[in-house]
């Protein structure tokens, strides 16, 4: 059977249910690919369980129960910051070596319910802190388009795995761009949901008020399907908005049932979805990006215009403060979230036990990488007595300004369009020695997290063989609009 064309999740589910492909063979082929790979996408593999489940799927595929499952037999890779029961979960950190959660994150329960098969835990920046997957304790992941370059981060392992066909679907998490950045660098689709859409129960926290788990896939339709499964209601997350669940993705999915488009021409009818759609292009997001990126993104915007959308250049003045505000908030929350890693109930416990405080400090000194320590120090500082007003509180006020600015822009526009990243994938080791330069790479993504609005990155071109990402931003809980536009664009691009 062939992996000749890149299988989509929709294809897999259909063909498994119809008996056209064997789930077991598919999974075996995936693992073969992983084992041959030089990319280092995975930290832990779930081969035994996955194969057992695949065999089960093949056996029961025609049964009533299985026919209802939306992701039957689809291989999915999970970022290692998401808790999986019985499977090691490390957040790519030495301090969580060997940690096996006794519970599944809510999204994992949802995936299992729909029949997805977890093939392994993907590499990432340690505790999601980074934009290149270079801070991982398990070594960097490589970009499938150029092995000497970074895949982006922090969900680099997930993005690279999709791009290289080492999985069909993947989960990432996005605090300041961690889904969209690697999606952009690896040439795949990745969506950060509205804050409060997807339950964070089971996501090992980096910055609670900013992050969301989100879908990553090779195409927009798969992204929509996965998002629908992920947005299950969950009583265990107080910050999830219960009235907006199971994001309506009927647009994308209904196109498939009946009017499957593939090669231009047959995509009749989909353009009507973006007719009259008002797209805002904030100039602050375009300033300072590389020329190829700028060209590519403008081409994409024009393509959408050809399909009937209307675009307008706008200005969002306060955006230049977003990066500082983001990092202060994220580091402050992180410094508190990471305080629990003390070697008592889980994780690293090396050396001789001295007194509590000394032992505790030593373990953390040994177990955390440099970037993590940097952020813990800065975050602790920002919250400490005398500095709280200057940094944390101030950043929260700036957040209000940024949020208002997005809300204003989205009052007069349906979506916003801009480049995901200011450049294409950089070389391994190029920026890691200068933390600030890495932080600055996030300039186009962090403001979206501050405002809590949804955003998707889809490929829109190449520069010297390296993918460029188009970012579409929507109103709170209007993932449909950005999915619609992304899908239409994708069809024209194909």
């Amino acid at each position, binding site marked *: 059977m062939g992996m000749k064309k890149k299988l989509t999740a929709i294809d897999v589910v259909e063909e498994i249910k119809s008996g056209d492909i064997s789930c077991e063979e598919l999974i075996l082929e995936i693992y073969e690919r992983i084992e041959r790979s030089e990319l280092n996408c995975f930290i832990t593999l779930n081969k035994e369980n996955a194969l057992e489940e695949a065999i089960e799927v093949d056996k029961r595929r025609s049964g009533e129960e299985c026919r209802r499952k939306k992701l039957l037999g689809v291989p999915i890779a999970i970022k290692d910051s998401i808790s999986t029961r019985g499977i090691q979960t490390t957040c790519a950190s030495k301090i969580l070596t060997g940690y096996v*959660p006794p*519970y599944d994150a809510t999204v994992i329960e949802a995936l299992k319910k729909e029949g997805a098969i977890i093939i392994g835990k993907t590499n990432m920046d340690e505790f999601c802190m980074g934009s290149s997957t270079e801070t991982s304790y398990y070594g960097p992941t490589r970009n499938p388009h150029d092995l000497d370059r970074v895949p982006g981060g922090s969900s680099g392992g997930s993005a690279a795995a999709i791009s290289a066909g080492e999985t069909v679907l993947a989960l990432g998490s996005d605090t300041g761009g961690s889904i969209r950045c690697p999606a952009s660098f690896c040439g795949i689709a990745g969506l950060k949901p509205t804050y409060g859409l997807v339950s964070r129960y089971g996501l090992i926290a980096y910055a609670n008020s900013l992050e969301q788990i989100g879908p990553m896939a090779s195409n927009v339709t798969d992204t929509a399907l996965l998002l629908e499964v992920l947005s299950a209601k969950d009583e265990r*997350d107080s910050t999830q908005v219960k009235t907006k669940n199971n994001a309506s993705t009927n647009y994308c999915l209904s196109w498939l049932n009946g009017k499957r488009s593939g090669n231009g021409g047959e995509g009749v009818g989909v353009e009507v979805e973006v007719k009259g759609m008002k797209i805002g292009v904030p100039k602050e997001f375009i300033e300072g990006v590389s020329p190829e990126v700028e060209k590519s993104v403008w081409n994409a915007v024009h393509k959408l215009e050809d399909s009937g959308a209307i675009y307008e250049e706008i200005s969002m003045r306060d955006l230049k403060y977003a990066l500082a505000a983001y990092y202060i908030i994220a580091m402050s929350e992180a410094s508190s979230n990471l305080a629990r890693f*003390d070697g008592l109930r889980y994780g690293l416990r090396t050396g001789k036990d001295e007194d*509590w405080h000394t032992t505790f400090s030593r373990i953390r000194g040994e177990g955390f990488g440099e970037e993590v320590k940097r952020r813990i120090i800065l975050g602790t500082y920002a919250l400490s007595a005398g500095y709280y007003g200057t940094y944390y509180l101030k950043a929260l006020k700036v957040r209000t300004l940024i949020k208002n600015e997005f809300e204003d822009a989205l009052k007069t526009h349906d979506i916003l369009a801009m480049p995901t990243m200011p450049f294409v994938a950089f070389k391994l080791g190029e920026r890691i020695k200068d933390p600030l330069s890495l932080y600055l790479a996030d300039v186009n993504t962090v403001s979206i997290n501050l405002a809590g609005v949804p955003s998707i990155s889809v490929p829109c071109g190449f520069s010297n063989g390296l993918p460029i990402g188009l970012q579409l931003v929507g109103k709170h809980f209007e993932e449909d609009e950005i999915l619609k536009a992304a899908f239409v664009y994708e069809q024209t691009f194909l």
Partner: protein
Amino acid sequence: MDVKIGLECHAQLLTKSKLFCSCSTDYHDSKPNTHVCATCLGLPGALPVVNERAIRYGMKVALALGCEVQEEIIFYRKNYYYPDLPRGFQITQYDFPIAFNGLVRIESGGGDGGKEREIRITRVHMEEDPGRLVYIGTIDTAKYSLVDYNRSGMPLVEIVTEPDLKSPKEARIFLGKLRSTLEYLGVFDGDLEGAMRVDANISLEGGDRAEVKNISSYKGVERALSFEITRQKNLLRRGLKIQQETRHYDETRGITLSMRTKEFEHDYRYFPEPDLVRIRISDRIEEIKREIPELPDEKKKRFTSQYSITTEHANSLTYDINIADFYEEVASKIDMKLSATWIADVLKGELNYRSISMREASKRISTADFVAILRYLKDGVITERGATEIMREMLDRGGVKPEEIIKSKGLASIGSEEIEGAIDKVIKENEGAVEDYKVGKKEALNFLVGQVMKHTRGRAEPKEVRRLLVGKIESEF
């Protein structure tokens, strides 16, 4: 010397599940680490969700203490490190607690004739309990500690007083009043181990405050504070300054130890808990106010007037809501004053002696049983001693009726003939003692009374026996 004491009281609330997770709160007799989940164990990725009933209980306490309940509450993180704190922060309240500005009235601990004192309540707020540390040895000598997280996440209401208390005794009285009130509200059970923990602030002559932590018993409070006052007085006498510091109370040795080392310097870096949202509470105030029952002060007043009993008795009867209810039930059936005496003076004493609660006791001796006993007493069927013995027997054995005991122990009062008979016998058999009495040795009479009681197996009234004995002896001459 001018002493100022302020208390921070942490009381565990009687909800069915913990404050931020659904683990059962019924852990007190369980094996360690059997009432934990991802959230209260601090596993990475777990999230808190607020228990609505816990908030209601907290509001009830605030209202009962006369506080001003706020519009909205926000939970904050208090960041510090201790093995019993699984997340490295405690979820508590800081700027938006449940309530401010209340008042508790207590009897003065000074010798000024039991005048009433007003103790101001600064604030009432909610927070979670940390786990429990078990030291092999004492905190400063143990080679390692053992941690049990069953208690982690239990809902606590924290009641903070202004430094209005003037003595360790007063502090104990205040805690008694607080316990009483909380039990009346049905939100607290003072008999559960570790249910109430207190930190105290104490300063002398307006000097710096010392904070004493880890007090977990009512007696402990008085002892710890007395020790502190002595310690501070000694320092002042030697011309030394009292350091503003935190001290740890060691229950076993009855002393406080300085904790003023680097480990205990804290910068709590409070910030609002990002995993929780604001909760509007002011809309529940009226409803919760209506749920508040008659509180100790009101009940005491009512008892003195309704039942015509003394203030002392009323005090004693209303401290524990279970005793108050028991009394009212009994007093509705039989002599109010007699009931008061027998419950406040006798029954309570028996309970204290056996260290059992009224709740436990009422399983063994019902109000109906008690009424029966008092009736037998009133009708002269049994003596006071007999009544006491029946009560003791029922408390010790449980599952027996008064009538059975009267029968089995032959406690039925005896007639005067039998008494006279016994007296005659005793006088005959103890001529020596009789002689002693005649020459003026009054103790000899006690001996003779005792002998008569022995003969009648306690069924005679001692006063009556004494009267008859004396009569008999003196009449022979």
